[in-house]
């Protein structure tokens, strides 16, 4: 079972290439507003995350996700269920 911290570290690695300004990522970083992903890129990122963690990530969670930390909480739940 992966801890939230472990999940976060992997998320930072997956999201970092999307940041054109190479900003420092944290739990509070907003995926669209701070990293600069548009809605299409967010969905691309979801597929990458699915493959990395080998888990299904329904698009339905996206309206509830603003920050990387919120994404990690959802992933933790999904990984527990899989």
């Amino acid at each position: 079972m992966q801890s939230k911290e472990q999940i976060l570290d992997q998320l930072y690695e997956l999201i970092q290439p999307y940041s054109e300004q190479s900003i420092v990522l944290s739990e509070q970083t907003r995926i669209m507003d701070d990293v600069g992903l548009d809605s299409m890129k967010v969905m691309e990122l979801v597929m990458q995350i699915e493959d990395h963690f080998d888990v299904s990530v329904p698009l339905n969670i996206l309206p509830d996700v603003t920050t990387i930390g919120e994404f990690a909480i959802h992933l933790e739940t999904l990984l527990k269920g899989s």
Partner: protein
Amino acid sequence: MTILLEKFRPLEEKRAALVACSGEDPFHVIVERVVSATESVVNGRQVIMVGTNNYLGLTFDPDCVAAACKAIREEGTGTTGSRMANGSYAAHVALENELAAFFNCPAAIVFSTGYMANLGVLSTLTGAGDVILMDADCHASIYDGTRLGAAQVIRFRHNNTADLEKRLQRLGEQSSRTLVVVEGIYSMLGDCAPLREIVDIKRRYGASLLVDEAHSLGVLGEHGRGLAEEAEVEDEVDFITGTFSKSLGSIGGFCVSRLPELEHMRYAMRPYTFTASSSPSLIASTRQALQILSHGVELRTKLWDNATRLHQGLTEMGFDLGAEISPVIAVKLPVSTQEDPTLLWGELLSQGVYVNLVLPPAAPGGSPMLRCSLSAAHSPEQIDVVLEAFATVSAKLQLEHQT
């Protein structure tokens, strides 16, 4: 201005920048006069329309026009309500029966638009506990349908059957409660789904399959039934959705199924139940067009000849196109180009050729596109005019000719 409208300011600024750059607004084109199925007057100029999806060119077919006029005279301009509340006109039911017979299916439901067909079916067929597994390049109506429903939504990489299988595998037992959604011909790139492989995968995992044949109806298959017919897998496709607004030249949508229980779903679909039904003239011209489409071998031959002529010409000019010849031809502009896509689009318009400008994020793969759609009604001479116009774009992009 109310604060509610403030959020659209950036969008308006982008649009204004596009107009300032080309002097034309590519997303607010006014068709001042329609000359024929292939020509219109746009911004004071008569232009060849190569972006209408009017694949069989039936919008001015004399029999379709006559059928629509007769229906208006006999049944009026509109139905003024939904089929559930106001009742179905006999012609609505007749069209459903004719669609069912055309597809050799026991069930058919007609919707007021193709968008609403996808909205209705995708929001209702699957519910809580079910999964929609869709190709990433699916149309907005499919995305919106999934948002209206309660199923989990997962995407697989465009036309990538290994990616589809990996995602189905990951779903485990839920795979039998999964609806795989693909399109016959994808509207932006004009490529086809690898349907035989997809059918094989869905069968192995016990999933259901929906194919949106919006751009392939009348275009693919010996009888024009679309990709499922062309790929000889009609018995394995559970649901087909489509539209009347492309090859049938009117407005409306449909769902047919090899499963008679589709009928049970009719009044459970809010986008079916709570909207006005199609007007008599639309139903009448669609019925006539369906007759023509089902015997339309000659029209399909003309359409594919035109597609081949344009595809070959553009390939020789060095444009980056989809690999397959298709009635939808996407001219991908190099991401590195310094030329503004809007200016190139305006250049084509000034030379009498209207195509669709597709900009990221709407453009798959992130490169801007000049999207063409062919019609059986185009003449070879018109295609040559289109090619001449593209030659100037090719020169601006300094593409290397391949001949």
